[in-house]
């Protein structure tokens, strides 16, 4: 298991995390059905507007699934930022992970490691978390 993703998308997510600081940022990366290839970045609004929680607005969520269906795409990656803690799934993240086929990406732009950042990917299936390698392409 691994996630292959382009540098420009990684950079855009890290930038979104900085812009929305101190709130957590979130979004998805879409790709053609069955491709497992994250090609279309779609930042989402964190309806919780919170530094410790994120949630897609239920209306945006339905629109997202409709759009994905209409375009024969799938949600390849679901990402969010942790602004003060490590980029690994919290108990909350694990409890609410509802897409067994998705790569769950967490980024951290916390100050204590700046200017370094973290960008990590996990599978979360039935409460079991497995970290996977991230391969960044130019």
């Amino acid at each position: 298991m691994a996630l292959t993703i382009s540098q420009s998308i990684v950079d855009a997510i890290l930038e979104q995390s900085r812009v929305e600081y101190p709130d957590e940022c979130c979004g998805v990366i879409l790709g053609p059905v069955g491709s497992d290839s994250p090609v279309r970045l779609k930042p989402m609004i964190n309806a919780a507007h919170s530094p410790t929680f994120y949630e897609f607005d239920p209306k945006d969520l339905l629109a997202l699934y409709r759009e994905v269906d209409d375009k024969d795409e799938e949600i390849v990656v679901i990402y969010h930022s942790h602004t003060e803690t490590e980029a690994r799934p919290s108990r909350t993240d694990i409890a609410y992970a509802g897409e067994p086929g998705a790569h769950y990406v967490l980024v951290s732009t916390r100050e204590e490691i700046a200017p370094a950042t973290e960008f990590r990917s996990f599978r979360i299936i039935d409460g079991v978390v497995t970290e996977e390698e991230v391969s960044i392409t130019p």
Partner: protein
Amino acid sequence: MSIEVRIPTILRPYTKDQKSVEAAGATLSAVISDLDAQYAGLAERLLENGALRRFINIYVNDEDVRFLGGLDTAIKDGDSVTILPAVAGGSK
């Protein structure tokens, strides 16, 4: 009376991997009971202590049932019901 119910990936193990199933009922609550009669265990994933689970979204014809009548939302023949797990989490 037939209602189309769209099932999210995470609940498809209950519906033999079907993306969409048929159910009957005059209210959302009745539709969920009918679903559970056909696909045992499904209601437990949608309800907690008789209420809709906080991190499950159900839409009737694209309207979030929380803004309709919740579990009492009236359902009529030809309506479409969509179930989606919330996308949520956080560092705490």
